[in-house]
């Protein structure tokens, strides 16, 4: 009588195999979603809802400062003239110190001046503030 040898042990195929390395296709729907979140109206809505509390000056500056027409800005010729639509008047008021601290912190984080932060908030509250009046004139002056 011969003894039957038991077969060797083998690892069964796993039900969940690791996926082979693949890259995100350029037409993946996530990019369209992300682009929609980068639109000015989407960001303004996010600011109004409180989801966005600081603007990255590098990726959101177009929200507050409309791009200068070709040939203008950055100290090129007549761009040194102000593009504001109305004369500027001084406004002085008192605010709680923690408000001012937050405005300064946002200026440090985003580069958006306290003046523009206030004007932008007023625009969100329904006060008319024209795009051209949100231009940061200090940048224009520095680069000329």
């Amino acid at each position, binding site marked *: 009588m011969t003894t039957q040898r038991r077969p060797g042990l083998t690892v069964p195929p796993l039900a969940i195999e690791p996926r082979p390395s693949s890259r995100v296709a350029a037409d993946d729907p996530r990019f369209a979603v992300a682009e929609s979140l980068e639109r000015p109206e989407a960001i303004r809505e996010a600011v109004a809802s409180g989801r966005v509390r600081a603007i990255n000056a590098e990726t959101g500056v*177009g929200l507050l400062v409309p791009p200068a027409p070709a040939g203008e800005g950055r100290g090129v010729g007549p761009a040194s003239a102000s593009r504001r639509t109305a004369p500027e008047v001084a406004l002085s008021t008192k605010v709680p110190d923690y408000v001012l601290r937050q405005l300064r912190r946002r200026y440090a984080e985003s580069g958006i001046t306290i003046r523009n932060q206030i004007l932008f908030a007023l625009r969100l509250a329904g006060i008319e503030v024209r795009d051209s009046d949100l231009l940061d004139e200090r940048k224009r002056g520095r680069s000329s």
Partner: protein
Amino acid sequence: MAIITFAQVKGGSGKTTLAKCMVAEFVARGASVAALDLDPNRPLGRFFARIPELAHVEVAVPDQERRVSLLVRDLAARFDHVVIDLMGAATNDTQVAMALSDLVVVPSQMSEDDFQGGMETWRQVEEAETVARRKIARAVLMVRTSSGAVRPRVEAFLRDAYAQKGAHVCTASFGERTVWKEMSYAGWVPHLHERGGNAAENFSAIFDEVLGLLAARAASPDPLAA
């Protein structure tokens, strides 16, 4: 393939250190990786430039023409993994980066501010998931925890607090070690230069756990998919 974002609306929570370590771990494992630096101080590129093994890592930075979505689309087409480091605030980039991500890691120290910021960030990932109609793997990672055997009471308390609010907390945590602070000055990264050491083992455990979340997400059906 993974787009991994380190997000926390509170600053100083450890996002950038973790992003540096994540990129270094991918490099140590021979993976193809690039980074997107959304912190205006540009810490990633500066750090990688100091470490010969990381000097080749491509770090994209946005400007007014090259938006976040455009940069990530380009990196994701050329690299297997993209690591995104966000600014420590609820910025206009936060939701964009989350909507692009496969995995969002929310670092949290033990302060109440970290917990508040961590939960706000967690909710933002949930919103991004709804908007993107795609499951986004996510986890809170406890940071600057005690490297000793004894866990302070506040860590257990916070883990429980996050869990009660519905946030998943990694089992591994990023231990408080001088070596993380010295990386830039010494040009020495534990998981590149001393694999098997305690610090390297610590980050390796984090790496395996968070990438395990990605694998679990890939293996489960996506109810949010259209």
